[in-house]
């Protein structure tokens, strides 16, 4: 592809998609939009349809309905090989019979570049991902993190308008993951097309994406900027991901009723609401504490487990909740599973918002 062909239209790739994929016992129906340079994370539990959505965007899974528009043109009518996309697959799928350099040169070759030019382009991309010295290596000689970077270089070397990443960090060990995540973030920052990132890891999504789209059972359940989603989860799945206790209740002024429990909140709000608070805001007592009956309920300890430096106590009762307390507190209170305790939350640590 020559410079003159590449430049026009390089300004604003905009993705607008309505993806409908019907399977015998599953239906995906979601809408997505991405602006130039934007990174959208599709977040959801296993089987939610994230990968199906990505495959539909790539053209690897046919749409049952809907449409995909990229830069104002229809994308869904094009066969896979004619779509201006780059895909990083979950286990990278580097061609085992080709060197790292030839893997990256594969796309430019398919676009009509000469062998020499394709290799030069590929060399430049390997340089950008910091793997110039591994150009001659076969994929099986590369570490997981290196293979991931080659896969990214291969996807970007075709100068895609839409970059699709399927769990790009899932196959890496914790240590490598940290480093590769920040590298990936830099590369995504340099990329001027739209990026769709599929992940089940909230941290990946928060660090890498400008906008989260949470999918459950083939439908969008929540979307917004990462901070917003983290602060105001709207489903149990999201709440668990971001580590909050989440309940649906009815608000009346500064009071929210969740079943038998009444919470005081700082927000002035009415009607159906969500109320969320972190496990660290929950305090436990062996005997009923004095004072207001609000923000207080009696619970049974379901289980106790280590959680970072603290101990997480799972509570059953009128509401299901998690409480994070210090190991010292566990010892002081002599907590064991099956015990009855009193749980309390400070009003200032709760957060209520319209449901």
């Amino acid at each position: 592809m020559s410079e003159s062909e590449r430049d026009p239209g390089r300004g604003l790739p905009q993705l607008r998609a309505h993806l409908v994929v019907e399977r015998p016992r599953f239906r995906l129906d979601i809408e997505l939009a991405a602006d130039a340079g934007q990174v959208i994370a599709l977040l959801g539990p296993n089987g939610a349809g994230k990968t199906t959505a990505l495959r539909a965007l790539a053209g690897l899974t046919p749409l049952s309905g809907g449409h995909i528009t990229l830069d104002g043109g229809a994308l869904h009518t094009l066969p896979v090989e004619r779509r201006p996309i780059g895909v990083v697959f979950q286990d990278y799928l580097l061609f085992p019979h080709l060197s790292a350099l030839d893997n990256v040169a594969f796309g430019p070759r398919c676009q009509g570049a000469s062998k020499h030019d394709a290799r030069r382009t590929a060399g430049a991309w390997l340089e950008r991902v910091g793997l110039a010295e591994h150009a001659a290596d076969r994929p099986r000689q590369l570490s997981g993190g290196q293979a991931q970077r080659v896969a990214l270089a291969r996807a970007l070397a075709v100068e895609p308008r839409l970059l699709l990443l399927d769990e790009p960090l899932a196959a890496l060990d914790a240590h490598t993951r940290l480093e590769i995540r920040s590298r990936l973030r830099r590369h995504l920052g340099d990329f001027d097309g739209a990026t769709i990132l599929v992940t089940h890891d909230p941290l990946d999504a928060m660090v890498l994406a400008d906008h989260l789209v949470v999918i459950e059972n083939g439908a969008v359940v929540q979307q917004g900027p990462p901070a917003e989603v983290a602060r105001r989860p709207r489903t149990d799945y999201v709440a668990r991901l971001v580590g909050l206790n989440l309940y649906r209740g009815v608000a009346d002024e500064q009071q929210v009723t969740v079943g038998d429990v009444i919470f005081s909140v700082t927000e002035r709000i009415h009607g159906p609401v969500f109320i969320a608070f972190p496990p660290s805001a929950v305090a436990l007592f062996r005997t009923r504490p004095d004072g207001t009956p609000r923000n207080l309920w009696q619970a049974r300890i379901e289980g106790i487990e280590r959680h970072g430096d603290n101990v997480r106590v799972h509570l059953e009762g009128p509401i299901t909740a998690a409480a994070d307390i210090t190991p010292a507190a566990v010892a002081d209170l002599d907590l064991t599973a099956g015990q009855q305790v009193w749980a309390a939350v400070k009003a200032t640590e709760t957060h209520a918002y319209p449901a």
Partner: protein
Amino acid sequence: MVLAVVGMAFLVLPLAGLLVRAPWSTMPERLAEPQVLEALRLSLVTATIATAVCLVLGVPLAWLLARVSFPGRRLVRALVTIPLVLPPVVGGVALLLVLGRRGLVGQWLESAFGISLPFTTAGVVVAEAFVAMPFLVISVEGALRAADLRYEEAAATLGASRWVVFRRVTMPLIAPGIVAGAVLCWARALGEFGATITFAGNFPGRTQTMPLAVYLALETEPDAAIVLSLLLLLVSVAILAGLRDRWVTSA
């Protein structure tokens, strides 16, 4: 245990017999006989051409069977493997009926192009390819089925057309299967007897391959038959050794 030893002896002893009874003293002269060299040359050439024909026709056929779902695919697969179980003589007769001078296709080939296959070297190639092709098709189809389709998907997302995907990704990935299939196919073609003698006859220098020469020599000159047999055995062992190396290195 005893049965196993008997079984092994049954397979190995005849080969050992060949070695024991071989006329070692006159071996060099016998090997240099023009008739022997001619038969050997003809065998190697026809088996190689037959293998090439099988590759050109068999790999696409294997791809069709492995990758394209169409009605009657199972039937086609069953038909393709018939030469595998068919007595080769029957194959030769069938080839004669279809490609012979008065055959369904042969008639037309002769009138339209002046091509006549029976009792020619080309006929040897046809007979060998007919018998040997299932070995290649089955081996390549197995390799195609075992290959990870997602590599082909990855290639497509990089802009590769179906043909480019096949040539630059699928073929290299299944190369070990193709090589193994081609070697089996070649070995089968080299040893072909029944279909060849039925369809192509037994003309020295033209259609008399090694197996035919062995059979003929056995009646007139048993020592020559042993020498020719040893030669074929040597080629077979070489193939086996080559294949093993292939499999060991690719595993």
